[in-house]
């Protein structure tokens, strides 16, 4: 028997994917349609699935904060019946096709998505058109989902990490558009009426403000023809109204906001600040910087979990949106280790803002983004979602081909500069946990500390109580 090697064999030559090329058209009613065909061939197992996504280009950030939750409730109601199918009939119609039709509200868009097997798709797509163009908004459904939304808040608030994210948005944005909770509060949800939902839908779900992405096991020509046949007759219900005029977000400020929740199992820690918009020229550099910080082998997890065992995991996220969104580093820790984890987290950010990563680290962290990108487009839904995000933010559709070269071209110095400009200066810290265990240590290490008992927390207010 030959000796078995004791070092990893090197990689073979790099392989590249042949990616689908998206085409686009605009229908007469103003709807922008983007289509692609998934690649199959010999030894390329075809999946008989087609998927589509319709994005309105107004989202929860555009809702009136005193009606927080209207976008989310509107989206939830879209799939609870149309003018031809009540909620039960609609659910049965979707399930009978083995289809999935979902709607959700994000900060910048309401997204309605559909996927189905090839023979079932045309029928599923027609149901999705009715979701967008002829929703029922039945009064009984409105009451039911509003009650459910209020009930769901209890579950969200019982989860320290979920609650910390809601608090983070208020700390970062205050009364500006991304500050209020998309899920609403007990007060705002209780005040909503069905008319609010109808008005919100009329303002946001309009062909001239929407984008349709469709692709998978279908030719581009067939996809365009199906889009025309299905959505060509969609006309908005009423004249378009202007959106609200938002406040500007507060300037970044180094502060610690503690929500004291003595029954929390562990403390959720979030550190961050307002960073950049999706179209910012530094987006690619900031994305690579986030990759340097995040992931199992990223700097935050190495320092917090691997080196010190303070947590089961730590990571970072850049939420780049139409307007500048947040960068956050987050972890979930034992109450007794909050002070140490906070210091380590902030030190990691400052370190990256000061010193450019070396070439070896840059290569590894870029590889994570490139691999993640290819995996993201392994499924039909994944390609639809990627193209939908590009279209929503005005990113060229050719980025499907150009993203990988852009990542490869990013330097360590660009990563340091993006961190110094957008992540590291004056970060806030949000802590949701049993404050009595750690508050003394936090107060001695930080000048600006606010403690809010959970009972006094009010996410409807920019000041949080």
């Amino acid at each position, binding site marked *: *028997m030959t000796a*078995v090697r*004791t*070092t990893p*064999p*090197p*990689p*073979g*030559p*790099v*392989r590249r*994917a042949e990616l689908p090329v998206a085409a686009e058209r605009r229908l007469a009613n103003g709807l922008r349609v983007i289509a692609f065909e998934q690649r199959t061939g010999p*030894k*390329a*197992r*075809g*999946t*008989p699935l087609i998927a589509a996504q319709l994005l309105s280009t107004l989202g929860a950030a555009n809702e009136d904060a005193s009606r927080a939750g209207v976008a989310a409730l509107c989206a939830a109601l879209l799939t609870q019946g149309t003018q031809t199918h009540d909620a*039960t009939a609609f*659910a049965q119609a979707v*399930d009978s*096709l*083995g*289809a999935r039709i979902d709607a959700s509200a994000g900060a910048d868009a309401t997204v309605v998505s559909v*996927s189905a*097997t*090839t*023979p*079932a*798709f*045309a029928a599923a797509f027609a149901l999705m058109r009715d979701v967008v163009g002829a929703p029922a908004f039945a009064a009984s459904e409105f009451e*039911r989902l509003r009650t459910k939304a209020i*009930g769901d808040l*209890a*579950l969200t608030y019982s*989860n*320290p990490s979920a609650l910390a994210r809601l608090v983070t948005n208020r700390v970062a944005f205050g009364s500006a558009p991304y500050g209020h909770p998309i899920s609403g509060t007990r007060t705002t949800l209780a005040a909503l009426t069905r008319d609010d939902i109808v008005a919100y839908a009329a303002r946001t779900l309009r062909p001239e403000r929407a984008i349709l992405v469709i692709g998978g096991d*279908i030719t581009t*020509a*067939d996809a365009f*023809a199906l889009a025309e*046949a299905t959505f060509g007759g969609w006309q908005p219900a009423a004249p378009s109204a202007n959106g609200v005029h938002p406040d500007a977000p507060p300037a970044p400020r180094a502060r610690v906001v503690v929500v004291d929740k003595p*029954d*929390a*199992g*562990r403390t959720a820690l979030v550190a961050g600040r307002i960073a950049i918009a999706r179209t910012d020229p530094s987006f690619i550099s900031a994305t690579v910087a986030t990759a340097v910080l995040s992931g*199992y*082998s990223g700097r935050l997890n190495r320092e917090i979990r*691997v080196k010190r*065992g303070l947590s089961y995991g730590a990571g970072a996220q850049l939420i780049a949106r139409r307007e500048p969104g947040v960068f956050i580093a987050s972890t*979930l820790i*034992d109450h007794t280790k909050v002070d140490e984890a906070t210091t380590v987290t902030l030190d990691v950010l400052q370190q990256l803002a000061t010193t450019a990563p070396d070439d070896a680290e840059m290569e590894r962290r870029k*590889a*994570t*983004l*490139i*691999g993640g990108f*290819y995996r993201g487009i*392994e*499924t039909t839904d994944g390609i639809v979602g990627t193209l939908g995000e590009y279209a929503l933010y005005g990113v060229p559709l050719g980025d499907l081909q150009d993203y990988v070269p852009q990542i490869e071209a990013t330097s360590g110095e660009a990563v340091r500069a993006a961190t110094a400009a957008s992540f590291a200066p004056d970060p806030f810290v949000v802590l949701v946990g049993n404050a009595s265990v750690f508050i003394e240590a936090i107060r001695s290490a930080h000048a600006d500390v606010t403690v809010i008992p959970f009972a006094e927390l009010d996410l409807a207010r920019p000041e949080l109580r």
Partner: protein
Amino acid sequence: MTSPVTSRAAALTVAPIDFVDRTLPNGLRVLLVEDHRVPSVSVNVGYRVGGKDDPAGRSGFAHLFEHLMFKGTANTATETIDRLTEDVGGYNNAFTTEDITNYYDVVPAHFCETILWAEADRLAGLLVNEANFHTERDVVIGEYDQRILAEPYGMLDELVNREAYTVHPYRLGVIGDPENLRAATLADVMHFHDTYYRPDNAVLVVVGDIDLDATNAWIDRYFGAIALPPGAVPRVGIVEPPQTTERTYTYRAANVPLPALEYAYHIPAATDPDAPALDVLETILGMGRSSRLYRSLVYGKQLASMAYANADLRQQPGLFGLRIVVSAGKELADARAALDVELARLSDEPVGEDELVRVKTQIASAVIRSRQTYNGMALALVRAAVERDDPGAVNADLDRYAAVTAADLQRVARAYLRDENRTVIEYLPA
């Protein structure tokens, strides 16, 4: 204008997963699928060891092992697998169930040989010392704190296993007991590796942008060199006696937002001919908004905020779980009564033809979705090989579901969803 989609065949045709199946002289079973859609490859190594195989007084060992397998070998430093996956643009992870410990790596295709070497290397020999053993044990206990203690309904799965089984080791669950883990020694760890981490106790699955000949040569070189140890792998032979009376357990904790209830019924193993009917029952009760529990409890009567059904089919007899979380302001007793009505319907009335066709379409579509990715295909092969000793089942499953009749469903509901065959867990706010 002609309708563009009618020109396509109306019937759903699904390409089989075209796998090559062979067993090395040392007993390692190898399943390969060549597919060139994306320049990526999924490597899964599934070991026939899970929570049920934990040694006495060492509950949580299989899961602890899942962590220790990342700590390095004689040839590699700790976290080498992470560097060889995440740092080249892939990812890896592992999970432990009652029956399987599965390690999976998804990497760019040109790293296929590298990752095969690394998986063979950690099968052949693990390097654990007191320091990394203690560190990883603390991480596992931290995971227990996070997943079981901190999550509002985190303890429910543990309670279901613990209360539904009286003697079978499924009763100890997977994540284990922090006290048992604290009592473990390094010698225990090494003995566990020698016992279960051997080639004849593993299944290697490779799916993706590969050349079959080259991949087989790498597998022969790296995995084929591992010796087959003497003796046989120990197997759990304990048989849970039939349950004859309903049991109820009430749990209270401060972080439970709303009361929950679970019914857990004993069901046969995944290989049993009744298994497809149990999956169909799960779908009828709990999959999607047209499902019976959703329409009755969540949507209709609004007594529950969530309602789940789960045919937890395992290598040895498993559990059929029904779980509800009561809506705010509603009574657990009322929600439970509504659940009982739905259970009685399954035994009393045959399922109608429309509903049967619908749930079969739902199942087929879900199976197709789950196999879109290389890793999804690989995982299906691992599970079929370990849980059912039949990887070919992945291509027979859709036909097995299609063959289920309304009479089968009624018979199976009557046979298993009986009060005296269940354990009731009431999960309540303190």
